[in-house]
């Protein structure tokens, strides 16, 4: 009797532990098999992980609904993860523990390489739609010769959002060279308007990088093999004048920043450029989507031009590929087939139309059979012109796996006058070194 009584404690503990274990296991399985009807009767539920931004969730839900309407046996349940670096960690952790959703949306380029696609993702090079994709997307989403995802959304540029009415009123042309850009800034300043908007609030620090990242078209125009040399550790920002220019531009633009540039955030910046409080805002074209809600009715007052370099003849835009939609290796059997169908939908014109309805595009689609509707925003039209004229270069982060994590803080140091341009560039070279070593690239030990 006594023995039994004693035994109850530890046994109960073990039982409890098992129960907890089963519970967590259940929720684990539940999250990947969705409504629990997986397999039976031919119907499949796929979980689909996207980041928690409004645009991503809205577009994912629209795609899920439209896809289910076209394929009634497959249900997509959308799940969310944080954005930014926390999201990167969530994706990496889920993949390494085999806990990833059946399908997930994520960046391509250098971030995709960090996921070790060969071990973690299902290649889709053999899918029929793979040949219908734009080279900007294909080159950004191919690792070691294999394509790993379908395009989720449109490409977009990195350049300068500008207020069209101000430019008209002051009789300004879109600047083709950096010196023209500064001259325009001078004219705008004389008219009592903030010439260049910067937004360094803690929530929007990433916006500081545009001067450097958006200048890559000009870097490549002058040093065509920069990406390869840079990845091999042979060229650095600090000792390559064309690359250093991005940091120098921040320093030269400083006198023209808006007064509250240290505390303004992305939304303030977008409102200012849309309402004409400021004239030029170096930004990603994709950010212009926010204007319709922040400054209703002003979407067509905002245009978009490339960050100019030294030479007007090579003027062109640095562009970003849309992220990909991927299938992890943990998705198998009927789910894998369903997941491939879902990716095919993303790469179809029906999929593009669904995306257009959910979120107005800010650049061209990466599926050749998709067309932009005629009612798109001015920013999308301006971006597409650069694509049409073949004046678009894909950003460095798609050409090289290394991007230092502290670029935004370093740009802010230069922008607030804490560091000189050359000091900023060499700080960034040190920052990049850690990333290259982490990836085990040759030439960086």
């Amino acid at each position, binding site marked *: 009797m006594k023995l039994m009584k*004693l035994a109850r404690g*530890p*046994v109960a503990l073990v039982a409890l532990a098992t129960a907890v274990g089963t519970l967590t296991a259940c929720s684990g399985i539940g999250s990947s098999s969705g409504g629990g009807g997986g397999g039976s009767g031919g119907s499949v539920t796929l979980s689909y992980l996207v980041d928690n931004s409004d645009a991503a969730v809205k577009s994912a839900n629209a795609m899920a609904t439209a896809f289910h309407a076209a394929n009634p046996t497959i249900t997509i349940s959308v799940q969310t993860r944080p954005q930014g670096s926390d999201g990167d960690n969530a994706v990496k952790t889920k993949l390494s523990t085999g806990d990833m959703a059946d399908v997930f949306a994520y960046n391509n380029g250098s971030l995709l390489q960090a996921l*070790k696609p060969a071990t*973690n993702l299902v290649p889709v090079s053999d899918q029929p739609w793979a040949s219908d994709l734009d080279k900007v997307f294909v080159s950004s989403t191919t690792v070691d010769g294999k394509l790993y995802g379908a395009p989720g959304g449109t490409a977009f540029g990195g350049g300068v959002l500008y207020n069209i009415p101000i430019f008209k009123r002051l009789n300004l042309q879109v600047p083709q060279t950096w010196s023209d850009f500064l001259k325009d800034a001078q004219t705008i300043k004389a008219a009592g308007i903030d010439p260049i908007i910067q937004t*360094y609030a803690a929530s929007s620090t990433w916006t500081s990088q545009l001067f450097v990242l958006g200048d890559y078209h000009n870097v490549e125009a002058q040093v065509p093999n920069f990406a390869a040399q840079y990845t091999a550790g042979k060229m650095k920002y600090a000792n390559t004048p064309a690359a250093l220019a991005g940091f120098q531009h921040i320093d030269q633009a400083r006198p023209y920043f808006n007064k509250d540039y240290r505390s303004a955030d992305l939304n303030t910046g977008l409102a200012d450029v849309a309402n004409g409080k400021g004239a030029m805002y170096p930004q990603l074209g994709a950010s212009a989507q926010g204007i319709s809600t922040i400054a209703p009715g002003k979407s067509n007052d905002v245009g978009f031009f490339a960050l100019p370099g030294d030479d007007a003849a090579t003027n062109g835009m640095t562009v970003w590929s849309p992220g990909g939609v991927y299938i992890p290796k943990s998705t198998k059997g009927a789910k894998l087939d369903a997941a491939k169908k879902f990716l095919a939908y993303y790469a179809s014109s029906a999929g593009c139309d669904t995306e257009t309805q959910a979120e107005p595009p800010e650049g061209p689609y990466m599926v050749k059979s998709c067309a932009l509707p005629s009612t798109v925003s001015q920013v999308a039209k301006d971006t597409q012109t650069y694509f049409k004229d073949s004046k678009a270069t894909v950003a460095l982060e798609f050409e090289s796996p290394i991007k230092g994590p502290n670029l935004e803080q370093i740009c802010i140091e230069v922008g*607030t006058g804490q560091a000189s341009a050359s000091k900023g560039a060499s700080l960034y070279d*040190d920052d990049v070194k850690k990333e290259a070593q982490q990836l085990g690239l040759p030439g960086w030990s």
Partner: protein
Amino acid sequence: VTTTLPQTGQQPDIAEGPRRPARAKRGPYPYWFYLPAGVIYTIFFIVPTVVSFYFAFTRWDLFTSQWIGLANFKEFFQEQALVTGLYHTLIYAVITSGLKVVLGMLLALLLMSKIIARGYLRSVIFFPVLVSTIGVGLTFTILMDPEQGLINRSLSHIGVNGPGWLVDPTWALISVALVDVWKGVGLATVIYIAGIASVPSDYYEAARVDGASAFHLFRHITLPLIRPATVTVIILSLIGGLRSFDLIWAMTHGGPGFSSDVIASVIYKEYQAGFFGLSTAGNVVLFVLVSVIVVPLFWFLNRNETQR
């Protein structure tokens, strides 16, 4: 578990005479009683600690790890952000700890006096300790906005042009430290109130009979006798200051630039960037740093106390 049960189950039998001395030596409980805590302690504390020391010497991407010896530590100490981060950490710890000691003591003296609504005022000073740090951080970020914030607008009414607080590189760290003091001073005050309350009133009466002034009472009776409270406040707030992260992250993300980065935020950013080995090495450094500062300080403060 089941195989050991029959034997361990015997142990807590009703104590018979001869077995008692042996048990007394082992402690009051049988071994199986320690088992659950021991298992939890091993799985959740010993194993991760040992493993983290291992990963500090590797280049680790969560999928694979590669032994690289001391390279992580070398990298960490070469990094400029770390050197400034180290310096900021010390400044932050000293400012917050110093202000909490001084303000905590003064507030405790005030709240021990015979003022109206003393109980209510005592709880008011403690409320910020209970509020979420992130909430406090976000609230003060809005209050400290250089253009629209309540603080600078109020200052401008009395003709003072307030600094940029969180957005000015020279002010950012100090601004966060001040908010940290506001949030944490309640705890220091409560410790001091307990310390002051434990000083016997006989001493004061005796000193007053001898003609001691109020300052003398404070200097020669209160201050020496609340020394244990002072030691506790210094140690607690110094450790808190050295490993502070949440408030800084909520308010500035270590910015503008790197001007309010402390070791903990440098480590966090490295973890975010996927440098898992490097950031684990950073945590080992932080552990060593806290030990190196706090252990001798603790020993020094307590030694003096016992010597008196």
